[in-house]
């Protein structure tokens, strides 16, 4: 128990370092961008000298670089990510308001993909049947079909034709179905193949033979024994996938006219809204760092042997 607490404390400290590092890189990149940020901030029109100086002072750009870096870090620690040039709102507020729809979409897509893939993998692993061949072919099709195309197809069919789900936006659950399904379809194939391979490897282990020799049925062997071993590679993959999904699924959000991190990031990049881009980078780094810890924690839960290994 004590070792787990220590391990967690160490990992959290490391995560803070990672986030500060990411923020520093973002801050540095900001300084390298050509052009005067004050001008960008104030829009196209040429301001008077006085207004310019006042804004420059307000933004703190008259301070030397180390001072500004210190202030940037200080703000960061207080959760202040600065002011968006374009939206004229605090970056933290902008991201805060966009985070929830993205989390909803990412988790819904991930959950859906996981359940379908697990069902496919458990029913077809290690079986040389026609059903398995059909499943493999379907997975390959799902992997290789571009998400935007699937999205458009789903929209056309379910929204325009059948009017089952809203065409655009919507905070409702119904509005979540099609975008989540679109994202999930791209993931199911990968998940199912990773899990099936893990299951097939586990099913060849001697402990599975032992379990069968105790009179354990095939379904129980798969769910009780093999699946847990197949989850290890799956967890590794999930950490990365969920992280990417939370970073924003720009295409899907655009197709379904949803709010979300992906869309505001795309807009911010196009409009050179550097504080917002920096903020998104810092948030993304934080999410990845936390997900990594969660993944390593999950390893230890799934396979207790890891406690001896993961340091």
């Amino acid at each position, binding site marked *: 128990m004590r*070792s787990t607490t220590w391990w967690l404390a160490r990992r959290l400290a490391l995560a803070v370092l990672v986030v500060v590092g990411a923020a520093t890189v973002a801050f540095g990149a900001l300084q390298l961008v050509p052009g005067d940020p004050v001008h960008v901030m104030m829009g196209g029109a040429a301001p008077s000298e006085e207004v310019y100086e006042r804004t420059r002072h307000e933004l703190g750009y008259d301070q030397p670089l180390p001072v500004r870096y210190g202030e940037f870090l200080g703000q960061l620690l207080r959760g202040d990510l600065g002011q968006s040039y374009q939206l004229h709102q605090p970056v933290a507020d902008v991201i805060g308001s966009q985070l929830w729809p993205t989390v909803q979409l990412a988790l819904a897509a991930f959950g859906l993909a996981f359940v379908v893939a697990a069902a496919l993998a458990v029913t077809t692993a290690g079986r*040389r049947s026609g059903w398995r061949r059909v499943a493999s072919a379907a997975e390959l099709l799902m992997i290789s079909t571009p998400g935007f195309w699937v999205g458009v197809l789903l929209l056309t069919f379910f929204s325009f034709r059948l009017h089952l789900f809203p065409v655009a936006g919507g905070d409702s659950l119904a509005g979540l179905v099609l975008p989540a399904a679109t994202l999930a379809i791209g993931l199911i194939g990968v998940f199912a193949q990773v899990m099936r391979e893990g299951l097939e490897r586990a099913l060849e*282990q*001697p*402990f599975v*033979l*032992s*379990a*069968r*020799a*105790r*009179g*354990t*049925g*095939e379904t*129980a062997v798969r769910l*009780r*024994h093999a699946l*847990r*071993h197949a989850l290890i590679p799956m967890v590794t993959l999930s950490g990365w996938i969920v992280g990417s999904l939370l970073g924003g699924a720009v295409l899907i959000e655009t197709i379904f006219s949803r709010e979300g991190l992906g869309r505001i990031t795309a807009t911010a990049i196009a409009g050179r809204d550097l504080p917002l881009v920096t903020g998104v980078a810092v948030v993304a780094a934080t999410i990845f760092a936390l997900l990594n810890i969660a993944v390593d924690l999950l390893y230890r839960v*799934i*396979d*207790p*042997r890891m406690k*001896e290994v993961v340091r």
Partner: protein
Amino acid sequence: MADSDPLLAVDDLRVSFATRGGPLAAVRGVSFTLAAGECLAIVGESGSGKSVTARALVGLVGAGAAVSARRLELAGQDLLALGERDWRRVRGRRVGLVLQDALSSLDPVRTVGAEIAETLGNHRLVPRSARPARAVELLAEASVPEPALRARQRPFELSGGLRQRALIASALAGEPAVLLADEPTTALDVSVQAQILDLLAARRADGVAILLISHDLAVVGRLADRVAVMYAGTIVEEGGVDDLLRSPRHPYTRELLAAVPSAHARGTRLAVHRDAAAAPAVAAPDAAGCRYAARCPLAEDRCRMADPPAIDVGHPAPGAGLSADVPRPAAVDLGLPAVEKGPPAAAAGPARGGGTAAAAVAHRAWCWRIDEPWPAPPAGPARGRVQHADDVVIEVDTVWKSFRGPDGSRRPAVRGVSFQLRVGETVGLLGESGSGKSTTAEMVLGLLEPDEGAVLLRGRPWSRLGESARRPDRHRIQLVPQDPLGAFDPRYTVERLIGEALRAPGRRAAARQRGRIVELLGLVGLDASVLPRRATQLSGGQRQRVAIARALAPEPDVLVCDEPVSALDVSIQAQILDVFADVQDALGVAMLFISHDLGVIYHTCDRVLVMRDGELLEQGDVERVLRAPAHDYTRALLAAVPRLGPATGQVPAGSGAGDAAPADGLGVGSNVGFGVGSGVGPRR
């Protein structure tokens, strides 16, 4: 026969697997019976079909396998007619299965208690709420100390012995009448092995019928009542354990027994064949005749023409002495019987085994040539064990090494070990797992720095050197690993593997050294035909030969051999031990030979070091240490070794073809622990 209704009846069992090259017969017509409270052992090397036979009895030979039999009955029920659902009711409830290596045979992520409770749940033997408590009881019955604590632990948290007990407890949880034990003690230390065998013997005494699958004749001798020897999918000889181990008649059984590196074989060759070319035991495509003929030194034409019939060997006359002209082993007490079984066999007498009259056990061999004298083992290399000059190659001077444990404390692994290794000498390093023998070897190899003390190579410092200072001398010490498959790059051909060790890395450079490589292969009994093969295309024995050739390539002064034969079948092991003897004879290389097997150490080594818990308990001449051990621990180790009969594998030279009545090796020496009842078997 008295047993009218055996518990398990197998008649003409055949199993074949569908492969790309057509069906491959793994078991071809095996028949036996098993009664309650009896232990039948099936012995054979890997690929002989012994495990497949066991798995057929629980319907778990795998998909794509075809099983057929004239009769396959468990307590009168026809197993061949069972569907998958019916099989499930048999598995665990009526037939239990124990596999080797509980670390991989118990689900590593589940608690031991959950694994045992699974059997209870599958057969609804105990209500759900009572299962954990019953699991603890079952662990206690398997002699697991602190069972309540152990039930909450996972296999990797238990020692090898406890783990194996837990696995046995899970197989016995459903109180099956038959227990299939597939290599249940392989990979365990001898003392732990002895405990597990005692546990199985106790269950047998309770009336459980045990089918023991093993390649280890010593284990078989300790537990079994009857033995069936399998070769290439058929039983080639069967009989009562004492009878069969003491007077083996089929050439293959004789080869197996002769291959055991017990004391008597010291200084002689173990294997009949020097070269690796000997036919494998794996079933060949359906050719007529005895499958062993290709390997058999006694084979004649008719052996290759038709399958030999079962020939009744008969029983040895009680108290029959051994012909005087059979060469007796020198170290009688080491290789000798003391087949210590639960109740002394002599006391149980013919009545042992709940109704199976031991005296009625027929001893039969499927061979025409059972009365032929076994060819004398090829003369061993003249091991002039006096040859070693007092030339110390390696000097280990009071080395200490400790490692940091998971809780941060330092745990000593090696504590003040000192020894010397001289030119042309083989020193054995004997100890159980965790004794510090591998750590010691790593310090000798210069892969670990001792905390204190020093290792000297030819009188010069070897430890505490920078790697750049050590590198020029690295070639002087080479390693022969336990598992060459893991130590070889799987993409490399044999030529490249050895070429690399000749400082000719790469395919083309190796090809330029081909002459030297072939020469090295010749030293280990291989020829140029293996050059283009990769490690996975070699047999286990060939792989180990390549590993030895590779270690010899840089002309080392010292070979460190880390359990080099422990993963091999006994007949392959015999060949490899012979290769070591040849190599040392030819090159005079010094060897540090790590093993947990006393027989191997005795056969191979001049001197032996006995280690426990990082300490060197005893060292000295191998004859002295193993015959008259000074330390209690060495004595305990020796006592734990399951013993074999005199295992010379020789039919008395006097028994010609005419007189078939075997005057078998009973009553050898002073150690007549038992006699095989009074039954005078039917003579031919």
